[in-house]
């Protein structure tokens, strides 16, 4: 008789002996904590002059800038996101179906791209203001290179986060809540403010916190606008002052902001579970009267045109202009580097996330769920923090390795790990692990313990179960994870900029270099390439939401 001990392999079950999974999850979690620790430790080696300079001249301005930025963008995305979500989820008007997904398109546009298009179109010397001056004699109407300008561009680029999550909240509970409120004698307007909006608060808060994290992490837009925040300051400390400790100290202050956002976000997510009451009710939408319908239509159209159509049109126009001279061998080199890096990072993230998800399947209780949460916190860390946080320990390790190599093998070089992609890939892994982990984990959750048991009772070995049941059932989730990670890595700017080895210029780096010289037209071609790739996840998202609805 063939006898085995229970619970071997990857199959779900209550196993106590299989510690390797716990160790693995702990290692991934530790990887996330490395940059946190490194940045915090920077305060141990304080350079008095530098710290004085930072606290007197740099920090106050950064704090004020960051405060207004967060406040402005928070207000902007809340108003845009919630109002559009309500119109699309609850109301009915001509063109709604089309707008419902089209309003997600700005997700495909990196904020830094919208930023330089906006500056070109709205700057003092640029077409719109010139026209206003000539036609109407209006001058000094607005200054796009200002706090207001940054807030406007960031809000237009980031509102889809709030829109998407608030829309699903309203769609599942909004109409029913509104009907309940009306049956209790409230008007629709009062029903919205008294019931539907407060009910959706956890969702809106979660979306808002994602926006806050993106805003704190943003480097490209701030660089284009010359608006000093922590990310640009870290970059300057790194490249202009050549001070790693200063960069790390700034990074750790930024980290405090991020952690606050993370805590709020996680708490909102916990509330989302309790907030979801009742079944998914397909209530009838509220048909808007003709006047209101046109107003709604016009509002959505204006947002879409300003946030997406104009920037893309301008990019296409520029690209066409510079195509002949710019579409040369060097351009293909940038594209190749972008794709190669994105593929490497995607494979790394995919494999790590898949194993992490399986670790959670093997150990549903105890430490692993916590380790998973820590391991996926990296999505909140701005790239600048990760770049500094991994560069310092790798450089340290490198020096040690070089000493060893010199002593043992007569090694002559000056770098071993620093010249490789190691720092960059580690930083990508931490930053984008959550992007890959989300879809894979929820895909794995859908394979229930009963599914495993059914296969085993039908004689499946572990390998057969994995290859014939898990793999086909997970393939859509894996593809989703891969596409999302690929696109995010393509668009990533600060990590790439700060840690790329010599000769690894990507499309994003090219965009940064051209925009920092003010050559907007020449940044258009690589930007357009990223927009085209960036539309993939938007299509995926709309396809998936429509698939779950039917």
């Amino acid at each position, binding site marked *: 008789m*063939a006898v085995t001990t229970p619970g071997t392999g990857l199959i779900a079950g209550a196993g106590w002996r299989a510690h390797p999974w716990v160790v693995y999850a702990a290692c991934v979690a530790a990887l996330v904590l490395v940059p946190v620790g490194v940045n915090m430790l920077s305060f141990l080696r304080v350079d008095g002059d530098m710290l004085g300079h930072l606290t007197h001249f740099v920090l106050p301005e950064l704090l004020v800038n960051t405060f207004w930025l967060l406040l402005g963008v928070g207000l902007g995305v809340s108003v845009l996101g919630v109002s559009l979500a309500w119109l699309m989820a609850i109301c009915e008007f001509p063109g709604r179906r089309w707008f419902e997904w089209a309003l997600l398109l700005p997700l495909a546009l990196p904020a830094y791209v919208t930023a330089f298009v906006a500056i070109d179109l709205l700057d003092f010397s640029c077409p719109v203001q010139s026209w206003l001056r000539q036609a109407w004699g209006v001058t000094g109407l607005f200054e796009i290179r200002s706090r207001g300008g940054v807030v406007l561009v960031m809000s237009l680029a980031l509102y889809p986060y709030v829109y998407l999550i608030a829309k699903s909240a309203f769609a599942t509970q909004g109409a029913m809540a509104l009907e309940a409120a009306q049956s209790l004698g409230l008007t629709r307007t009062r029903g919205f403010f008294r019931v539907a909006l407060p009910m959706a608060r956890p969702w809106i808060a979660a979306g808002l916190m994602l926006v806050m994290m993106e805003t704190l992490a943003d480097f490209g837009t701030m660089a284009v606008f010359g608006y000093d925040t922590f990310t640009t300051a870290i970059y300057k400390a790194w490249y202009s002052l050549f001070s790693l400790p200063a960069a790390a100290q700034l990074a750790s202050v930024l980290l405090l902001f991020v952690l606050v956002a993370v805590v709020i976000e996680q708490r909102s997510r916990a509330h989302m579970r309790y907030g979801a009451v009742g079944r998914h009710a397909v209530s009838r939408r509220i048909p808007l009267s003709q006047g209101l319908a046109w107003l709604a239509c016009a509002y959505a159209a204006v947002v879409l045109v300003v946030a997406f159509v104009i920037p893309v049109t301008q990019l296409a126009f520029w690209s066409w202009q510079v195509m002949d001279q710019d579409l040369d061998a060097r351009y293909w080199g940038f594209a190749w580097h972008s794709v190669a890096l994105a593929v490497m990072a995607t494979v790394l993230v995919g494999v790590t996330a898949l194993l992490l998800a399986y670790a959670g399947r093997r150990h549903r209780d105890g430490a692993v769920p916590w380790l998973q949460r820590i391991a996926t916190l990296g999505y909140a860390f701005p790239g600048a923090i990760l770049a500094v946080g991994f560069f310092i320990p790798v450089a340290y390790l490198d020096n040690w390795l070089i000493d060893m190599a010199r002593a043992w093998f007569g090694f002559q070089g000056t770098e071993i790990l620093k010249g490789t992609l190691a720092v960059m890939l580690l930083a990508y892994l931490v930053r984008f692990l959550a992007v890959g982990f989300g879809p894979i984990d929820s895909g794995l959750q859908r394979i229930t313990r009963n599914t495993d048991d059914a*296969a085993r*009772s*039908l004689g499946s070995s572990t390998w057969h179960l994995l290859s014939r049941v898990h793999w086909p059932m997970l393939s859509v989730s894996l593809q989703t994870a891969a596409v999302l990670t690929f696109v995010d890595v393509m668009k990533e700017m600060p990590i790439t900029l700060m840690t790329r080895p010599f000769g690894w210029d990507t499309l994003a780096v090219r965009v940064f270099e051209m925009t920092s010289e003010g050559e907007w037209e020449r940044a258009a071609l690589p930007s357009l390439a990223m927009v085209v790739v960036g539309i993939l996840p938007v299509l995926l998202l709309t396809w998936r939401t429509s698939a779950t609805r039917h």
Partner: protein
Amino acid sequence: MAELTLHAVSQSYGARPIIADLSFTLGSGEIGCLLGPSGCGKTTALRCISGFEAIQSGEIRIGDELVSRPGVMQAAEQRRIGVVFQDYALFPHLTVSKNVAFGLRNLSSEAKQARVTELLALVGLASHADQFPHQLSGGQQQRVALARALAPRPRLILMDEPFSNLDVELRERLSMEVRDILKREATTALLVTHDQNEAFSMADWVGVMHQGRIQQWDTPYNLYHKPANRFVADFVGQGAFVRGQVRNARQVETELGMLEGLIPSDCNPLGCAQCTRGCEVDVLLRPDDIVHDDDSTLLAEVENRAFRGAEFLYTLKLPSGQRALSLVPSHHNHAVGEHIGIRLAADHVVVFRQLV
């Protein structure tokens, strides 16, 4: 097809016992059922038998083969036990016929096809072979799950709450159909459920479980009419306890009159024949033990009534204030508060020692 034997099987999570001292035998080709409220350990028992969980004492045999004892456990995939899960656990990425063929790996493709066709015909889904599970109704999914479990000709079929996700009407029809299918395939089967109608209509043998123990392993008829203890009497069917006094080995007197039958000797180690104390006992009266009779001098007040179409279930208040249930043909329509004539019509007696 083989016999299933459990001998003194126990399982616990930490200090909490889940099943304790579980023993029963299910003959080849018979259908058994573990019946009990949720949390009684019946699903754990099923998982131990199917090989998804180890046991801490006792042993489990299928036919002559020992499959589980403490520290030793044949892997689930080697047991040749078919399992039908509560949520069916169909493979969503495979068609109906591929789901059914999943466990048929060592057959030639013709033999495989033949077996799949045979089973789909048996469960009446031949025309759905190329559909995917999500295109089927709940009842159809249930039958696919059964066909998939039966396909590799398992030694034993286990079913976990097989009909709980279906509506009442479909549940009754399907339980009959499934019984037919199992009998036609001459399969030994064990199901667990909390629904006694399901247990009674499907099973040859039913084990009532409570707190991890089998309270009684018996035929459905005996569970209803000869419950071994209070829990079984309460859990299976409706009824009420009325105080009674033992007169002798065959007679017990209640305020409704004298009941005759063999009185078990559980109130006195010597047995009631030797007992002269006139023990106070509780007598179980089923609703069909009390009939409505207009000529009877014994009157009871209607305290509550539930109309069931063919009959009324009256809750009656006896002269002493005790409650009893009576099932009365529905043309005897009495209002709450009315006094109606009743008499005993029990052909056997079930007594328990009074609770102190």
